[in-house]
């Protein structure tokens, strides 16, 4: 089901944990849907210098969280905003189709964190009834391919 790389990132996730006094925190998903990802970023001069995460979710959710934290470190916030779920999945040698939504979670968590950073640094209005904060389960879970 999962690639070796996914299993590696699941069994030995990189950057698990919290960052005290993080510059940005993003949390997406909800417990009802079975997955939540919370990402902590340390940002200096708009460059992400550290990232940590906590995730409640399936194997793919944990692995994509781990990979996402690896991908963002060293990137500017602009670069980080360009990280797509596809890129996260590819970096993991792919995900099973039914699990693709978990890579969405990572992309969205990064975006949410950077939004948080932009708000904190006064560059963005807080605006959080939207997309990433309170989605419904079936927004993030792709329907299984049942009737073709």
């Amino acid at each position: 089901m999962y690639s070796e790389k996914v299993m590696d990132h699941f069994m030995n996730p990189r950057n698990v944990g919290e960052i005290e006094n993080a510059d940005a925190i993003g949390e997406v998903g909800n417990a009802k849907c079975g997955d939540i990802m919370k990402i902590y970023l340390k940002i200096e001069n708009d460059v992400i210098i550290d990232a940590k995460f906590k995730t409640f979710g399936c194997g793919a959710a944990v692995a994509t969280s781990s990979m996402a934290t690896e991908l963002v470190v060293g990137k500017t916030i602009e670069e980080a905003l360009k990280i797509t779920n596809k890129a996260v999945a590819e970096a993991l040698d792919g995900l099973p189709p039914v699990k693709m939504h978990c890579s969405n979670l990572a992309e969205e968590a990064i975006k949410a964190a950077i939004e948080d950073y932009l708000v904190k640094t006064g560059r963005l209005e807080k605006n959080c009834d939207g997309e990433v904060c309170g989605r419904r389960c079936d927004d993030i879970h792709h329907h299984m391919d049942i009737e073709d």
Partner: protein
Amino acid sequence: MENKMIYFDHAATTPVKPEVVEEMMPYYTNKFGNASSIYSIGRESKKAIEEARERVAKALGAMTREIFFTGSGSEADNWAIKGVAYSNKDRGNHIITTAIEHHAVLHTCQYLESDGFEVTYLPVDENGLVSVEQVRKAIKPNTILITIMFANNEIGTIQPIAEIGKIAKENNIYFHTDAVQAIGSIPVNVNELNVDLLSLSAHKFYGPKGVGALYIRKGVKITTFLHGGAQERGRRASTENVPGIVGLGKAIELATENLEQYNKKLIDLRDRTIEEITKKVPFIKLNGDRYKRLPGNVNFSFEFIEGESLLLMLDMKGIAASSGSACTSGSLDPSHVLLAIGLSHEIAHGSLRISFGDENTHEDVDYLMEVLPLIVERLREMSPLYEKVKRGN
């Protein structure tokens, strides 16, 4: 990854016992005749099928002519419910079932709803038990069928089938029970229970996959589900799966022969596991009735963690188990059974089912108890939900 594999998922399926495989084998290559043929190897197949039918009948306390082989437990459920519904629609269109049935029953009932039938899905209490009184109250003049599972596949709860059977009989309503999880686990006698139809599936009691049976009490009005040839006395078409049927027969004989001893062993493993998990792991909930449950079934919810992750980590440690998490069910929601007993989505996602069987030992439980608490702790340390709890918010 370890080489050792401890299998704790007997409710999902079981290995076929060597004695069973042995009885099946000749029917693949030598005694391969079509049971409808009149030459010698055809007659041998026929005889083998009839012997298997006798074994099933004996195990259920039924007559041989009341046993019909099918291609699975799901087919038996589909046949029983659709067959009785369509055959009796002149008498009424109301069916009573529960919210915790297997999908083979639930989706069949939903399908019938889309075709003009009316279905009452009885709720269950927090232990997963349906109340006999509620069944009685749900009966209406147009009720033609009650279908209530014997034992639940997820939380192991055993329903009061005999009492429900009595009510069904008093009210002259057909009563079907999905006994797929019960056969080979607890004693089942169709007459003591007053059931009219009963489904079973071989692979749940150390028989082969892809073969089941439906008990149909003599006189029950039921239409054919699988149309075609005259097999199974004209009621279920398809060239008979002779090895499968032979395997089912042998397996049910073995399973019912040693039932008491087998049960004792499983109950012992089950009760120990329930106690130790309760003692060693905080923030948990036992799902399903503590006592009215299958001898081999343990089902816990572990708060703050998700089931698939738990299973993967157990698998890496060589332990095979299952979960009601959405991630393992292929649907958006966690198990309908766990929701029906009142669990929140969160907690339902974090369930673990351990179902014991023949090969399991106390050493297996030792190992589980070594591994499981650490895994749960590890996943919780990773969980943003646990973080909040530790902080007290």
